[in-house]
């Protein structure tokens, strides 16, 4: 029998075997969707879409869910996770906006203005920044940044929200900063690659017409790589939405909806995201109601990451006529 395996394979057999192995990934994804939705089904069937709204404190509902018996009533599944959705969108949105600005500026710097020695060191620097594990960023957050911001928050600011929430340093500002530092290298690498693949004559033509180098880059190269920018933004948003560890370590731990009208205090208010809620409450998966709630949140995350890739693909379609990489 071993001889039969060791004889040279025919192309047909090889193609089938390799194809089957390659399809394992697609099958894996389908299995993942099936299992996650199956685990989440009790919550969906009991709550319907009202689950996405706001029904009071998420923390207290999750707390109550830890204590339910094996045959819970329909009302036990009641929860409104809007604060989590809001926290996710807020932190990811602000972080991506900040990271986009920084990444564009840094990419233009690398491609156009950096002296060759600096450019050579930037590549390993960016790659290293991208490789730092998220738990290290979380550690920096919780051991350095949170005590630092706690120092910055004045007593009056704490007293102004004292009856609603307790400020302890962790919150919007720290998390947005950490997330931005995490996703900037990814975006920078993608945008730099794309900028370098713009044909040189395009930009040189702009310079020949009298634009200065910066204007030429902005007018020609950056416009030409718009598909790549969209792709980078999509990838970075997916990363920011799914980041659970940094948020759970540095966000202050209360599922509160930070209020922009609070002024400066807004940046110090704690919040929770969907992903961090799953990690925080992972111990309690034995309780059936909490189990299905957490799976429902995971299903929401899965759905949103699908939608994000789809959206990035759709946005890139009309930009394809520029024909520059990606």
């Amino acid at each position, binding site marked *: 029998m071993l001889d039969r395996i060791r004889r040279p394979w025919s192309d047909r057999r090889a193609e089938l075997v390799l194809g089957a192995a390659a399809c394992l990934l697609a099958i894996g994804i389908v299995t993942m969707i099936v299992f996650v939705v199956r685990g989440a089904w009790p919550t969906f069937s009991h709550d319907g879409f009202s689950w996405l709204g706001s029904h009071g404190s998420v923390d207290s509902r999750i707390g109550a869910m830890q204590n*339910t018996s094996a045959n819970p009533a329909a009302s036990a599944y009641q929860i409104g996770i809007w604060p989590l959705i809001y926290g996710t969108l807020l932190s990811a949105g602000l972080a991506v906006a900040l990271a986009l600005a920084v990444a564009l500026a840094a990419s233009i710097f690398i491609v156009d203005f950096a002296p060759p020695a600096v450019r050579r060191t930037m590549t390993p620097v960016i790659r290293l920044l991208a490789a730092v594990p998220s738990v290290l960023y979380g550690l920096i957050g919780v051991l350095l940044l949170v005590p630092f911001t706690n120092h910055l928050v004045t007593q009056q600011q704490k007293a102004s929200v004292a009856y609603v929430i307790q400020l302890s340093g962790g919150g919007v500002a720290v998390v947005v900063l950490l997330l931005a530092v995490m996703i900037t290298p990814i975006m920078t690498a993608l945008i730099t690659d794309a900028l370098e693949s713009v044909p040189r004559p395009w930009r040189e033509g702009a310079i020949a017409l009298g634009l200065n180098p910066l204007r030429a880059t902005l007018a020609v190269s950056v416009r030409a790589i718009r598909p790549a920018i969209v792709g980078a933004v999509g990838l970075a948003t997916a990363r920011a939405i799914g980041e659970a560890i940094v948020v759970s370590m540095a966000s202050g731990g209360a599922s509160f909806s930070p209020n922009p009208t609070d002024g400066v205090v807004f940046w110090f208010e704690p919040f929770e995201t969907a992903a961090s809620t799953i990690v925080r409450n992972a111990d309690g998966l034995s309780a059936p109601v909490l189990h299905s709630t957490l799976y429902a949140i995971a299903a929401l995350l899965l759905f949103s990451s699908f939608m994000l890739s789809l959206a990035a693909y759709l946005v890139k379609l009309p930009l394809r006529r520029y024909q520059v990489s990606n």
Partner: protein
Amino acid sequence: MRRPRRLLAFAIAAAVLAITVPVAFAAQIITLSGATASFPLLEQLTAKYATLQHNKIRFSVSQGGASVGIADVGAGKVDIGDSSRGPQAGDPPNLYFYPIAKYFVCVVTNKSNPIANLTESQVQQIFEGKVRNWSQVSGSSLSTTIDVQSRTSVAGVLTTFQNTLLGGGKVASPPATAWASEGLEQQAVEKDPNAIGFLSDYFAVNNKLNAVAYNGTACSVANAVNETYPGWSFFYEVTKGPKSGTEGKFINWIQTSKPAKKIIETNWIPLTITKPVSG
């Protein structure tokens, strides 16, 4: 052509041997999970029992909170659940709670805010979020915002605190910060001069924190024994169905043997010391 075949046969034989032989040397494992308040006690008890059994039994103890332990044992994930609260409506069915030790809960403040005593209504107002500034609390010289530290809802210590010292009320959280373990809440109160919280005795009674008397009664072992201090409860070991098998023997050992009692006495109150019957 023949050498690879021999190598392959040898590899298969080695794998089969590796899988089948050492089954005889397996140690039995008992899994526990649950309360962070009783974790220091269980760590010592399980270590002692394992050595007494000549390491034929191994323990795997994890934390997570009393309700997590109860849910885990109800779902069959672990053998024994550690709980710092008694049974509640809403717990999984068919659970048996075996008390192993008595503990008590103290209200604690930071060392720089050495409040000697708080009345019942003061404790209720502070933890229920009605009073938010130290200047409104007599006995404190601070005038800053009160940073209330509490536990997450899975904590048995929270249940005990709410039932006994809050008279059935609930800690308002937010604005209180909910910590996932006793150790974390202890750290929070240690570091923040404006903090107030509640901790089980192992974590509260030390020279890093200020334990506050309640309605004039000091928070101490003696007052918990004679039950003049109201904030006490039991640690339970929870099993699904009546205790049996190796877990049952372990629980019996904790409840009856001398080495176990010596361990419990170090920081908690053994069950054999009861309130002396008057008269």
